[in-house]
């Protein structure tokens, strides 16, 4: 699975994308964010803020929604910042 980072996440994690291989218990957006945070810094701090969203194929995927079959997941900071 490829993860794309946007906004401040890109700066704080220090890259705009990375290839990951999450274990089988990572099924939802919440699972993915928790698993990434558990890998330590810089992900732990960067993804600590509430309201991290995800998108797959141009559609929002909310916290408890499944990432089943997703090959590319965009992680997005909260919106409403203009």
């Amino acid at each position, binding site marked *: 699975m490829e993860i794309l980072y*946007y*906004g*401040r996440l*890109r*700066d704080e994690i220090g890259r705009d994308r990375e290839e990951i291989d999450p274990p089988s218990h990572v099924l939802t957006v919440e699972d993915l964010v928790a698993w990434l945070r558990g890998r330590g810094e810089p992900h732990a701090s960067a993804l600590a803020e509430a*309201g991290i*969203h995800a*998108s797959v*194929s*141009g*559609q*929002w995927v909310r916290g408890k929604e499944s990432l089943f079959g997703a090959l590319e997941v*965009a992680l*997005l*900071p*909260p*919106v*409403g*910042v*203009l």
Partner: protein
Amino acid sequence: MIDVRVQSGDFDPGRQLARLGELKKAAVASFVGRLEADDGVRELRIDHHAALAKAELQRIAEEAGQRWPLAGIILIHRHGPIAPGGRAFFAGAAAGDADAAGEACAWLVAQIRARAPFWRKEILADGSERWLKANERQAS
């Protein structure tokens, strides 16, 4: 008619109003969102998720079309570097009813602010950078 654009370049609000005027409806309501910034801010950069931004703006426009009898909707949102005070987005609606156009335009602006996946970075005069957090400041 729905026209949604996500672009780096500036736009001409007068040209967009003229396009809505070509629909020959009784009312055209529009709003231009600009990026207000503190004095110490040299430049603003708007990051975005291209596919999601276009899709979300399209969804917002379609929802407005379901709520009000609109003849036309134009949404434009910029990304990339923008000078402080520069134009960030345009929302316009044409309708046969003035209240519908006005209410729809206000609703479009609120939805863009709340839902559109754009993020704002400020570059200060000393070269340092900071990302704005949600609802810290909004386009005026």
